[in-house]
């Protein structure tokens, strides 16, 4: 989030980063990962990539994807024996937070988080190896339904899905089929007959939400019954944690930009951040951001420990983080005034990401209902 240099009396700088003395402490390895990721991502300004994605409609830069594979980002959830780094979701959320901070456009969430989790459950070793190595792009369809016709020699699948993240760059579509006797997860080749993938209209150009239709498309059954349900549930949890971490990272970046502007910009002979109307708005954002970040860290730890409430808290984290980013981006726009409303200022790109994410991996209302059910309210 940049703005033109103002009539700045640059002296005291606003503080950046998260609160070490409020949040659950990060491990040394996580701090190192964060530094490495940030150093790479900071090579170009965040808005640059996102604006270019908006203008070209292009999400994937093949060279960048190969570099991500080399840095082992794509294999974070892939077992070591298959060329992955076999990390925890707490580690993943460090990387995702940085990706979100710089609004990095790539099919990372679809392939490295959702895809890798399902494939790990399916023990699809070849595909996992390719995911970690960067040669396979996959997507997972969670919203929607389909029916598999189980011809033993050539099973096919028919049905429709919405909000499939980055399906248009995937080579392999992982689809769930519950409209059958037992739940299934099948793999479908993106180029197979009967497969239609269409990118839906979205405010956020850094992530493509797609509609997928399959009409008697040939498929390979990866998982059935409880195994399929577990894989889908865990993919959902991992996805929510990673998405929430991205949203938190973006929110903190918006807050940093707001603080910078509030410190540099002078009116009435004072920096505008000294006015309580502005200062207290910034504090409101901080509260939302720190709360969301605590929620993400909590959910990640629960998921890593296979805690029974992991999915529930991951949903909470997603809702809190989404709200934090919406607030942080709207405040960034408001506090930066006319500058904040410019296309060239990054704040709106974060707001777009926030609004588009609301439909993804469960809306706030859906998560609220499942919490209410679990709590018996």
């Amino acid at each position, binding site marked *: 989030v940049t703005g033109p240099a103002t009539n700045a009396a640059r002296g005291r700088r606003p503080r950046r980063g998260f609160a070490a*003395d*409020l949040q*659950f402490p990060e491990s040394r390895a996580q701090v190192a990962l964060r530094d490495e990721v940030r150093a790479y991502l900071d090579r170009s300004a965040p808005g640059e990539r996102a604006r270019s994605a908006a203008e070209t409609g292009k999400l994937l830069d093949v060279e960048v994807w190969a570099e991500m594979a080399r840095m082992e980002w794509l294999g974070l959830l892939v077992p070591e024996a298959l060329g992955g780094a076999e990390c925890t979701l707490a580690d993943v959320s460090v990387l995702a937070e940085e990706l979100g901070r710089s609004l990095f456009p790539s099919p990372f969430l679809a392939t490295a988080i959702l895809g890798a989790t399902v494939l790990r459950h399916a023990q699809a070793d070849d595909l996992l190896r390719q995911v970690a190595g960067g040669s396979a792009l996959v997507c997972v369809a969670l919203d929607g339904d389909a029916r598999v016709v189980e011809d033993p020699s050539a099973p096919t699948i028919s049905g429709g899905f919405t909000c499939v993240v980055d399906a248009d760059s995937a080579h392999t579509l992982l689809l769930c089929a519950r409209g059958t006797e037992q739940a299934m997860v099948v793999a479908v080749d993106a180029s197979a007959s009967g497969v239609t993938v269409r990118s839906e209209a979205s405010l956020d150009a850094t992530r493509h939400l797609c509609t997928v239709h399959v009409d008697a498309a040939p498929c390979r059954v990866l998982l059935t019954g409880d195994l399929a349900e577990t894989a889908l549930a865990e993919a959902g949890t991992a996805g929510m944690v990673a998405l929430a971490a991205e949203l938190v990272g973006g929110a903190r970046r918006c807050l940093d930009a707001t603080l910078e502007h509030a410190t540099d910009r002078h009116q009435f002979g004072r920096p505008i951040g000294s006015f309580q109307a502005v200062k207290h708005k*910034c*504090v409101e954002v901080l509260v939302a951001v720190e709360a969301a970040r605590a929620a993400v860290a909590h959910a990640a730890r629960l998921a890593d420990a296979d805690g029974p409430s992991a999915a529930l808290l991951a949903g909470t984290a997603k809702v809190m983080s989404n709200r934090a980013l919406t607030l942080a981006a709207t405040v960034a726009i408001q506090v930066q005034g006319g500058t904040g409303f410019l296309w060239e200022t990054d704040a709106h790109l974060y707001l777009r990401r926030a609004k588009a994410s609301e439909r993804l991996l469960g809306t706030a209302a859906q998560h609220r209902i499942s919490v209410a059910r679990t*709590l018996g309210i």
Partner: protein
Amino acid sequence: LKIDTTARSEPSRLAADLGVQFNEAEDRFRSEFRAWLAANVPTEAPPADEDERFEFLRAWQRLLADEGWAGIAWPTQYGGRGADAIQQFLYYDELAWAGAPELVNTPGLLLAGPTLMIHGSEELKQRLLPRMLSATDIWCQGFSEPEVGSDLASLKTRAIDDGAGVWVVDGQKVWTTHAPWADYCFVLCRTAEPAGDRRYEGLSMVLVPMGQEQVVVTPLRQMNGDHEYAQVLFNRAQAPLDMMIGGPGEGWNVAMTLLEFERADQGFTDHSRLLVRLAEIRTFLAAARSAGTVPLDLLDDVRPRFVELWSRCQLLAQFNLGRALALRRGEKPGPWGSFVKLYWSELWQAVAELGLDVVGEGGEGGRDFARDYLTSRGATIYSGTSEIQRNVIGDRILGLPR
């Protein structure tokens, strides 16, 4: 008050897994205290009469102190357990879920005591701390004045060394919690004129005995009907020269230490206390639903609020856990206490409002939510208003210009 004991059991417990493994010693500490509470928490409700209630709570604290369960963070030589921050976190969690009465001498236990340990003389510590712990001596805090609230350094109460070994204190304090029952007041007052605009200098923390006729306590009736706090008039009140925390002129520094304790500590107590309230609201709703007395539109209104508040309670628990870990690492309370105080005080107000809306007035079968609702309105005022907390957070955490 009886707590819904199912609230803690799977699958629908309200206190979600914290996501950490406590070590064996911590687990042992927790189960020891849980067992002690199960055997010792009074089964009868606190008396309605305020004086009787105070004595009831004093007796409860004495019982805790006798068994080493009051002031657990205090060093063992002063009667504590030297408990670290994680043990305190567990301690408050157990107190809340056991439905135990509140600790009554908190201005002493949590504020004056720890501050005395840092800034006080050994002789004072030996003399005052044990009686503070057992609630034999009740302590109150003399900071705010009729004309002095958030801008504390502009206070007008004065203490003068009369040359005969006595501080003579003149002035007026207000909003002094527990003053009607207190034996001592720690009074922030001016002992020297400030040089120019350095008004943080020349302040001192004098410990004034309340049992003298030069101290006049006028209880104030609060909006919840209680007289818990009072106006205190010091009319040439006397305190021996050694009754001071820190030296003359060091009062501001001492007061800031104390405020950090105040803002840091309250957070530890409150996620569990609020979850207990939510458990009560849920129990009430469940009973009303099976009796068919809940209108559906009420449920539509309540569900999203309940879920939101439950989520925020989980986050408050995570903040408190994060803070406890930081304190155990040896970090100072610092301005993040303001953050947690802001968060829990506003959360309490929202929980109490939900309780009143759902359970209604009268406190049928448990907590009086009407009273809780009224009492909670004070939380965003005492210990620094929410507005002041936002200033502190903006200035000291975000580093925004003043």
